[in-house]
């Protein structure tokens, strides 16, 4: 417990310091609330408006989770196929990178035009943001299989499938998880962008409404919720990793 605290207090103090400076600046320089609300204003707004927000938060959480799961599975499948067929990998890898150079914010309206305002275009947006880090990390992890262990498996006559399930996949697990962790935080962002473009509920939709009304304080509330959701997603995956990769030697520091 004491050790845990020694890790937690430096960032905690840093955040506290940052919030204090912010609070002091807004009151010292008399900044208008519609330009930059103070942390106290935001806290008050959060407390007052909490009741109306739950519906939006829940909609975003659901969309995030659905998109994240689909995106991760797509990323894993792409990585496995490209890993098994090297020709496809050399042919499609540039395309994968290209797909990440198209700004999501430009692609989203197009998807709305093609697929309407339903769930499908939103899931496509999140999948597009999520699959890439998972696919790249998984392929990287599968490629870096330990030569010694690989030679050993071949020497004792392991089949391709045995090499994959007993060596390559468990060996790649830590890299796969680093990809999934990135995807988990991206998925919240993807969901919010999807909701900006066309939705009738969700945090993204709520932000759009408040922007129109110059309710900067409420936009900050929305941002805070997004940050918390991202952290929760990250924490969830980190826990899952800790449980699945518990054989890994603990790193110091």
């Amino acid at each position, binding site marked *: 417990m004491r050790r845990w605290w020694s890790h937690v207090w430096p960032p905690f103090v840093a955040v506290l310091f940052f919030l204090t400076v912010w609070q002091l600046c807004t009151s010292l320089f008399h900044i208008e609330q519609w330009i930059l609300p103070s942390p106290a204003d935001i806290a008050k707004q959060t407390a007052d408006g909490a009741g109306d927000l739950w519906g939006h938060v829940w909609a975003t959480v659901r969309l995030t989770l659905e998109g994240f799961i689909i995106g991760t599975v797509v990323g894993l499948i792409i990585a496995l196929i490209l890993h098994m067929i090297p020709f496809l990998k050399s042919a499609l890898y540039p395309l994968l990178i290209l797909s990440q150079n198209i700004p999501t914010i430009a692609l989203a309206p197009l998807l709305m035009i093609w697929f309407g305002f339903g769930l499908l275009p939103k899931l496509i947006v999140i999948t597009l943001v999520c699959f890439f880090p998972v696919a790249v990390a998984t392929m990287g992890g599968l490629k870096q299989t330990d030569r010694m262990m690989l030679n*050993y498996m071949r*020497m*004792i006559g392991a089949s391709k499938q045995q090499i994959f399930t007993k060596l390559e996949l468990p*060996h790649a*697990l830590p890299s796969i998880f680093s990809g999934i962790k990135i995807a988990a935080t991206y998925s919240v962002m993807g969901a919010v962008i999807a909701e900006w473009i066309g939705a009738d509920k969700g945090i993204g939709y709520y932000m759009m409404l408040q922007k129109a009304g110059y309710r900067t304080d409420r936009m900050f509330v929305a941002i805070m919720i997004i940050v918390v959701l991202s952290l929760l997603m990250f924490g969830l995956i980190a826990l899952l990793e800790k449980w699945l990769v518990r054989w890994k030697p603990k790193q110091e520091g």
Partner: protein
Amino acid sequence: MSISEETRIAAHSPAAQSELPPALEASGISKAFRTKRSSLQVLDNVSLTVQKGEFVSIVGPSGSGKSTLFHIIGGLVKPDTGTVHMNGTEVTGQQGHISYMPQQPALFPWRTIEDNVLLSQEVQGTVDKETREKARYWLDKVGLGGFEKAHPHTLSGGMQQRAAFLRALLSPQELMCLDEPFSALDALTRSDMQRWLLDIWEESRRSVLFITHNIEEALLLSSRIYVFSGRPASVLQTVDVPFPRPRREEIIEHPDFIKLRRELSGWMREEQRKMHLQS
């Protein structure tokens, strides 16, 4: 020495088994690695034999292509010329016929020690309750009792090496190929492990092909030693080690042992010197 020990050893002596085909017979093996510009001859017409229940060593200067020979025997690499026979059947270029212990332990970090030790049997599909019990018996025997459910990174280098050796020992294949298994260990642990391997082998009497560049180790453990030349490697000398079995570590102080060691060291030094002149 007890009587039962004596009879067992007699049953395992090469003379009693000379009619059986050898566990390993590699004949006329040559291999060159070619790139676009150049070709590097690594093995030149190497032939060697391991009889059933025999401990055979290969010593030679480092970088002389001994590991390549193992890769050929294990079927990872195809030789340019020559054949590999095991128990009378040709297995050139085929994998899965040897049990193998690499230079580094190469234990799988996500497996417990017990599951690591059983890996080869799992791949061959021969794990059952009996093999698990056998694995536990041996783990106990080699001083890894109580570590069955531990992960490799919690063990010391010597203990990991013992687990890697057990993994090879418990493999269903007849021939064990050990590739400089002690080279990464410190001197003290190394001599411990040599004594340990000697004891274990005296009990199990598996067919072993052992690569080392430590002459004392080779003399202590083997019935026969192939001395390899520098690159390209060929068999320079074949030495039959005359000391009786079961051996004790004390023989390293025997005058004959010291004489043989001096002789082998002389050859090795000469080869090492030639290799330096080449490069």
